[in-house]
């Protein structure tokens, strides 16, 4: 009972935060678009649209939480599905919202690129680098969460001894390596990440796993 109450508080707090974040993003987006009209910088308008798409992502995430997680928070497991499946369904709002976030980050990077100009032989592409890194980071983080769920499902429902966990384990390692890249700056991690992703399907074809 206490566990359900704790989940309930967490869900409501998350929904409230998401709604507040969406309202703030809508306001900031409007402000950027107004500024864009005033000074004639198209980049600012694209940045404003990025914030509106971000707000849409937050709303989708909040609605997904309200729809799926609140019954779980109150201890009503629908249709007698296993608890793991219920918990995965509770997170579907995040999954539905992730395309919005991807579009928003991309628009933000485009906005910064468009809004900056080269002075003294520099490249305006460098101005967009922080956001491109953020997009890359969040993309890998979302994939890690999805893959961890797939691994958990495979471990629970998959045939014992099959290659599924190795496959998902390698994919998880590949995206974890990608996540470490901005921190370590070691270019080997790029190749390691690609190699792990490339090798993962081979595990499914291995004699013990492909059957």
């Amino acid at each position, binding site marked *: 009972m206490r566990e359900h109450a704790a989940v309930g508080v967490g869900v409501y707090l998350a929904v409230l935060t998401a709604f507040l974040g969406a309202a703030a993003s809508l306001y900031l987006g409007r402000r*950027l678009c107004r500024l864009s009209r005033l000074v004639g910088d198209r980049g600012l308008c694209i940045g404003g649209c990025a914030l509106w798409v971000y707000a849409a992502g937050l709303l989708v995430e909040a609605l997904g939480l309200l729809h799926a997680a609140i019954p779980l928070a109150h201890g009503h497991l629908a249709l007698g599905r296993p608890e793991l499946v219920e918990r995965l369904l509770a997170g579907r709002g995040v999954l539905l919202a992730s395309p919005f976030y991807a579009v928003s980050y991309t628009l933000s990077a485009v906005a910064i690129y468009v809004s900056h100009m080269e002075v003294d032989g520099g490249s305006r592409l460098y*101005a967009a680098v922080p956001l491109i890194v953020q997009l890359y980071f969040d993309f890998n983080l979302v994939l890690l969460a999805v893959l961890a769920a797939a691994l958990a499902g495979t471990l629970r429902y998959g045939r014992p001894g099959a290659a599924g966990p190795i496959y998902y384990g390698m994919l998880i390692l590949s995206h974890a390596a990608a996540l470490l890249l901005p921190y370590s700056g070691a270019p080997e991690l790029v190749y390691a990440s690609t190699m792990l992703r490339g090798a993962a399907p081979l595990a499914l074809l291995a004699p013990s796993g492909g059957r």
Partner: protein
Amino acid sequence: MTRRKYRSQAGIILDILEALEREGPLPATRLMYHANLPYNRLKETLARMLEEGLVEETGEKRYAITQRGREALRVLRESRRILESLGYRL
């Protein structure tokens, strides 16, 4: 003043408008110094600002801030922190 290799258009416009508000009408050569911009970039930016009605040409090839320019300057100052947080180099 150190010269930055890339800058946002909003940041450049802010520098130009602030200089014009502070010093009154200025020629392009003086604006080059205040905006820390090479001549070709400054001319491009001034052409766009004239189009948007932020500045106007006065006699003797000088540029002056307009009422719309003052309004833009106010909004830009208010939004400085937000813009910098979002990655726009001012």
